[in-house]
């Protein structure tokens, strides 16, 4: 039976609850999906900065295509991969608004590569939130550019083969080399501590828009437990063991300068998987 201590449950003792910037709609994401967590921390940042009426989000195509149903801020829906282009237009026409894109790896790193690279190279004054789960989740788990070497997906049933499928695309490192990016970081949402760090990074990304110095790019590593065919807890563990060596977590570029000790030219991307998924 559930324990319920009514003496504690009083409005003055409340320390954490869902922010009002998220609507009450039940999210369509699979149980344990990192999208829900990331939605929540983005909404909390908007709430804490008090910019709910001055924020425009750009929704992508992919699992998070219905993001506009969950955020209680103005949203626009972009064509597949074109969120940075739409964000450019919104920001240039309304320079005082806070504009962010919310994209997955299929949207940002595959079909939208051109828009992403050029928006970052132009140094548009926007925040980009990039969810990397190494798979096309919405369409049933096909190989994405970010799929790890050896990782199984619907279109690579024997694991990703470098000779046939190429190497995983580390687009965050790639974008960090462009002069138009001001803040580039990679975070994850698999533990409470990681969620706090990711939230701080997103907050910094939104605050950077006031400085008008360029793109703030926040990659969030997320598990796709249904695509990887694992339980949510197993998927988070698998992500920590296998995704982190290939996609090291931490700041890559801060205040327009590459962070020391970060090797963005690292060639080795075929860290062997500890356990093959599926």
């Amino acid at each position, binding site marked *: 039976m559930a324990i319920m201590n009514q003496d504690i449950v009083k409005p003055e*003792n409340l320390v*954490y609850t*869902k922010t009002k910037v998220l609507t009450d709609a039940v999210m369509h994401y699979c*149980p344990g999906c990192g999208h829900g967590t990331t939605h929540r921390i983005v909404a909390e940042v908007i709430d804490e900065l008090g910019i709910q009426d001055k924020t425009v989000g750009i929704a992508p195509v992919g699992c998070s295509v219905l993001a506009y149903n969950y955020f209680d801020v103005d949203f626009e829906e972009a064509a597949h991969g074109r969120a940075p282009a739409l964000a450019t237009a919104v920001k240039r026409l309304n320079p005082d608004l806070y504009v962010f894109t919310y994209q997955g790896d299929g949207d940002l790193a595959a079909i939208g590569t051109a828009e992403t690279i050029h928006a970052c190279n132009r140094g548009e004054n926007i925040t980009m939130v990039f969810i990397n789960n190494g798979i096309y989740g919405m369409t049933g788990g096909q190989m994405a550019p970010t799929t790890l070497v050896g990782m199984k997906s619907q279109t690579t049933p024997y694991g990703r083969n470098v000779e046939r499928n190429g190497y995983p695309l580390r687009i965050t490192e790639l974008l960090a080399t462009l002069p138009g990016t001001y803040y580039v970081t990679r975070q994850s949402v698999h533990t*409470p501590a990681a*969620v706090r760090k990711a939230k701080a990074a997103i907050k910094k990304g939104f605050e950077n828009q006031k400085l008008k110095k360029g793109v703030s790019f926040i990659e969030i590593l997320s598990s796709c*437990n249904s695509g990887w065919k694992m339980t*949510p807890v197993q998927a988070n563990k698998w992500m920590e063991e296998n995704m982190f060596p290939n996609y090291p977590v931490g700041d890559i570029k801060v205040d327009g300068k590459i962070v020391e000790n970060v090797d963005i030219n690292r060639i080795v991307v075929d860290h062997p998987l500890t356990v093959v998924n599926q």
Partner: protein
Amino acid sequence: MAFKGQIVVDTDRCKGCGLCVEACPMHVIELSKHVNGKGYNYSEPVKEGCIGCASCALICPDGVISVYKVKC
């Protein structure tokens, strides 16, 4: 100084992913044997000992957990 906490789970919206069970440092959360309207085994606090750290609420993808905390 110690803290005493209490979580309230919105059981209708909970999807039973179990991440809060794993995240709880005091191991006081478990998945219920009962299911909600969508057929998920929702999570619930089953033991005394909650310290109100809000780890469960931070990791919850669906934001269904509210945390209350008092000093004691």
